[in-house]
């Protein structure tokens, strides 16, 4: 058993950290949050040049075939800086779907564009009932001519407002099927919602949108399997982002507590504050080592859906606890837009629901344990 990273991994982590710290400090993050696009196109191009996009993709399409662990390291560092970009939608969710479900032509076409930073993608899976389980997807894809027609509303679609292409999950007579849809296609309306994370959460309304057979991703009825497989990896990547957020929130709060004097004492010397801080640290450490193991299991190809669910279930609780205590220890100032701790408080709540909330995941664990 070995908890150490390779020197390549250390270098990767360092370069991501330095880039984000320099190019996108918290003040800039808040500015980006307030824009309609909700991301910084210039930084997106720079990230592509730094080769972050292709890290997990096959070499034959221009990627590096690094393990998921390396992708997770990037997500961790993004989490620390509360960074906002379509990386999770484009590279993690849609990229993996295309990698695992696409035909040669689709992979070549799409992955190479993603890697070059020339394609932004969004995944439209959720519907009105907000079920995380893809078997409840209802939106019909009806055969029309040589292709299909899509009708219905998709909700909670990250980055649809800036996407070039959207992967839409809909139901054909063979079951859930994935389609690659042009975001500008006729019949598509995209509405950005106000979310607690101030991110690009959108409604996507499809009104008689036609897609050709060639734009099907995978086979008819393969959608559930593809979504489930991608979701496992994307969940670990989301956890990585959350763990990064936890670390930053803890250190930021510890620093604040040491500098904040009340009753002629730095509040960091108060036992109540020390106990909160150690509980935050403990929660973080308990998830950190578990997350490393789960990422490793995915890379080793070991079946670990139960562990991924257990991890995400726990991570949700820990991140929200840390965000909450972080604000509490900051006191009033922690609730302001000006101070940075609220960035994490807000993200903790949004990320709790992304890729499945704790109720959903703990139920999955119980099921897997034979209950």
């Amino acid at each position, binding site marked *: 058993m070995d908890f150490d990273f390779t020197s390549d991994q250390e270098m990767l982590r360092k370069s991501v950290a330095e880039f984000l710290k320099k190019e996108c400090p918290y003040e800039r993050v808040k500015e980006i949050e307030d824009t309609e696009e909700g991301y910084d196109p210039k930084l997106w191009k720079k990230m592509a040049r730094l080769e972050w996009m292709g890290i997990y993709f096959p070499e034959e399409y221009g990627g590096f075939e690094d393990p998921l662990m390396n992708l997770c390291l990037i997500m961790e560092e993004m989490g620390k800086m509360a960074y906002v970009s379509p990386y999770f939608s484009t590279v993690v969710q849609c990229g993996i779907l295309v990698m695992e479900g696409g035909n040669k032509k689709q992979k070549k076409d799409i992955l190479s564009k993603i890697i070059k930073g020339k394609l932004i993608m969004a995944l439209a899976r959720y519907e009105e009932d907000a079920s*995380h389980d893809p078997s409840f997807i209802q939106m019909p894809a009806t055969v029309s001519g040589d292709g299909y027609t899509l009708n219905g509303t998709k909700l909670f679609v990250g980055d649809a407002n800036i996407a070039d292409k959207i992967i839409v999950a809909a139901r054909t007579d063979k079951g859930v099927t994935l389609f690659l849809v042009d975001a500008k296609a006729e019949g598509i309306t995209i509405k950005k919602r106000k979310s*607690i994370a101030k991110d690009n959460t959108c409604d996507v309304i499809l009104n008689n949108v036609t897609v050709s057979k060639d734009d099907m991703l995978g086979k008819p009825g393969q959608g559930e399997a593809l979504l489930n497989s991608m979701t496992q990896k994307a969940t670990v990547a989301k956890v990585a982002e959350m763990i990064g957020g936890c670390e930053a929130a803890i250190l930021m709060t510890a620093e604040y507590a040491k500098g904040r004097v009340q*009753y002629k004492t730095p509040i960091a010397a108060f036992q109540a504050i020390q106990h909160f801080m150690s509980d935050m640290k403990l929660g973080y450490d308990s998830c950190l080592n578990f997350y490393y193991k789960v990422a490793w299991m995915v890379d080793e190809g070991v079946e670990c859906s139960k562990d991924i669910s257990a991890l995400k279930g726990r991570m949700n609780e820990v991140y929200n606890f840390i965000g*909450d205590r972080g604000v509490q220890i900051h006191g*009033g100032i*922690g609730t302001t837009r000006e101070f940075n701790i609220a960035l994490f408080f807000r993200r903790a709540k949004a990320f709790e629901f992304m890729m499945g909330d704790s109720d959903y995941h703990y139920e999955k664990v119980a099921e897997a344990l034979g209950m």
Partner: protein
Amino acid sequence: MDFKLTKEEQELKEYYEDFFREAIKKAPAIFSHGGGFEAIYSDDEGFAFHQKMAKIMGEKGMLSLPWPKELGGADASIMHQLIFNEAREVSRCPGFDFIGCGMFAPSLLVFANDDQKARLLPPIAKGEVQYCQGWSEPDAGSDLASLQTAAVRDGDEWIINGQKVWTTAAHRSDCMFILVRTDPNSSGSRGLSVFHLDMKTPGIEVRPLYYMNGSHVYNEVFLKDVRVLHKDLIGDEGSGWQVTMATMNFERSGMGFFSTGRKVMERIIQYVKTTKRNGKLLSENAAIRKEIGKIYAGLEAGTMMAFRVGCTQASGDMMAAASVASESKVFGTEFSKHIFDFATKVLGLYGMIEEGDATSLLNVVEEYQSAPGLTIAGGSNEVQRCIISWMAPLNMPRWKLMDPAALKR
């Protein structure tokens, strides 16, 4: 032991409930999204409605219920006040300036001289004036007594210099009651005094302090050579700490947390009974059912605690009331956080959306975001817990933070 409402109390309850039920119907849309400080102070239309309601309530005498009759009040019993407060808080109808009517006016009744009562009370009773409180400073939060804003005597006037922070509604206010250091050689809770201050006085600058979601409720207030007349000193010179401690404790039963909580619980029940997720009706989930049972128990327990605070205050035992009031504050604020958090969990992905059709079912994520302020404002819960432990019957050894004797009257 008797928990019955008298016939008269029952009638009052119905009267107030009817009044607010009708009144809130005319409120602008923002009040249907949670309401609260944000609706009242951050939004122009919301504040206009608050002012309009204040005048209507003023005409009906609802802003001065507990005042003595000779000062224009109704000499209302504590039960009358609690019934009024509960009905108002359940409806979430604005109009009652919790700072002016809820805190400053009761202080005036105790500490002000006749001239001040005559000048300051009527506009409050009529709902014509909005107040803010000048307490916290950047380096004086939980440790309020370490504040540095100073007033120096100059003939008939005092000259104030310093900075206040967390000033709720300062940008909407006509007046502030401000706690300042009048004895430059003092430290801690001695040498402080309270003044009544017109916000139009030259030298006052109000700057917004944006909340994490971007709303504007709080402010920083900078005071540079601000002149206030000596006759606007409330209470004796140097008695500011006593006045402030008493002010803090007026109607701090925490009833509002439980009234609000009950409404949220009802919204959750309605939602889970009609919503399927991952193939199952949410109301069939035993974990959700159990949590609702727990929440109901907490609400009933909290409501009775709040009534207990009110009754103890009415009995005049302000020390005992202060202890239970602190408990009620801690319990109520943490319970509120919990219930809003649970509501977002029930909503699932909808729990991160702040607006729009999709969330009309339950739009609690705004309240969820306001909630962290509750466990900080008005004395952080960490300090409150210490205070509870210092008072009877626990009587744990205390640091010098606060002298419970100051609460006796």
